[in-house]
């Protein structure tokens, strides 16, 4: 155990750098994915015929294996194979595929009388979307964001097979040098990162839906 702590102490700088890179590579795709999935879902909510093809495409994209996508993207995009852009694009694709159903279900869960009330109050379609539909959809969308974030944290490690930065480097180097300390540190830090990001998302959801807390309080 002492061994382990001296390992952590000696390598704190390197490990910190890998953790930062890992966080960046897991979070950016979630933000990009949300920015793409929200408008797509909103369009599908109004143009119903788009829903089936969009969801079918999302399903097909989600079944693309990550390692395969990581190797194919540079060929399609003409980027360098070690460019972290490939990983960000690959994870963004998964995030969009995962979030789209949540956004569509979430917007679909807004009761008709609520929509009509907003229209009756003179809300334009766009204002209704931002002020009424999206806030009501927050819990369903957040559920998708949580799954996507945790999945991304795990998937970033796969990038280390082709030499990308991140906590996965502790796995590849630990494997090559038979170093338990490195591998265990990598696993513990990725799980902690996933939990931390999850806690942040849950907190954000609480802040975004104050009425849910008010209702729970009234129920008690």
């Amino acid at each position: 155990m002492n061994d382990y702590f001296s390992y952590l102490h000696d390598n704190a700088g390197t490990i910190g750098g890998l953790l930062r890179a890992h966080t960046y590579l897991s979070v950016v795709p979630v933000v990009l994915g949300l920015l793409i999935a929200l408008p797509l879902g909103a369009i599908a909510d109004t143009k119903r015929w788009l829903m089936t093809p969009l969801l079918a495409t999302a399903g097909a994209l989600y079944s693309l294996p990550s390692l395969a996508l990581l190797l194919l993207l540079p060929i399609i995009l003409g980027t360098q194979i070690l460019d972290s852009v490939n990983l960000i694009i690959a994870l963004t694709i998964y995030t969009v595929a995962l979030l789209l159903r949540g956004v569509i279900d979430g917007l679909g869960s807004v009761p008709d009388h609520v929509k009509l009330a907003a229209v009756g109050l003179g809300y334009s379609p766009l204002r209704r979307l931002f002020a009424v539909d999206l806030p009501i959809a927050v819990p369903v969308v957040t559920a998708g964001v949580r799954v996507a974030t945790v999945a991304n944290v795990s998937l970033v490690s796969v990038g280390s097979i082709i030499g990308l930065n991140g906590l996965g480097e502790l796995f590849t180097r630990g494997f090559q040098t038979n170093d338990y300390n490195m591998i265990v540190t990598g696993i513990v830090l990725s799980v902690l990162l996933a939990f931390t990001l999850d806690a942040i998302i849950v907190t954000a959801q609480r802040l975004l839906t104050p009425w849910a807390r008010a209702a729970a309080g009234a129920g008690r």
Partner: protein
Amino acid sequence: MIGEAVGWPVVASSNYDIANKFRDYVTDPANWHGPDGVPTRIFEHLEYTVLAVAIASAIALPLGLLIGHTGRAAFVAINIGNAARAIPTMGLLVLAVTWRGLGLTPVLIALVALAIPPILTATYAGIQAVEPATVNAARGMGLNERQVLQLVEIPIALPLVLSGIRSATVQVVATATIAAYVALGGLGRLLIDGLSVRDYGKMTFGALLVALVAIGADVFFALIIRYCTSPGLTGRPTNRMSPIPDPAQPVGAASAA
């Protein structure tokens, strides 16, 4: 180059190269035979997938049924299931290899750990979602707990349970590629070996095959779900079920039509 003249990144020539290399790889008969051949790799990949999903189902299905039926320990089990999703498969794989040495066991440990959470969560959620009124009606008709589970809860939950196994399988197909990283076979070999010698034709073909196997598994389960869903849930007519006679029609008229 036209690309240079208009300031586009010059990728056209390399893409052309890759198309050539892809064709070279696919048309070379040597790549289709023997222990390194493509058919062997596909078979190995399916072998890892089927083994991992079968072991994961053997663990997660009974557990999910038990938790869903009794409602006990649900909170603990679901949280452990979700926490397990956060464990990076890659890390678990190299840890298992460092612990057990190279071979099939560490790969299966990593893949089984990946497949358990979706199956467990879906099974639990499927059983949990069965209407309490339906379960009570079954009990009222004199079914014992085992029969309630077998004849009522499982058939109703089946589509959701199967969709859990479906997403577990697709994930395992995608992730089984990392078996090649620890010197095992499977389609990951084409990716990893291709990468190490920069054979983009081999890599592309490998990536394409994994994607096809994943989509194939997805479609396979979509069909299973369609045909295994109880007709009572979908309203799909079957031979076993005679059409409900219309009370307004005399019996003779209905059979004549």
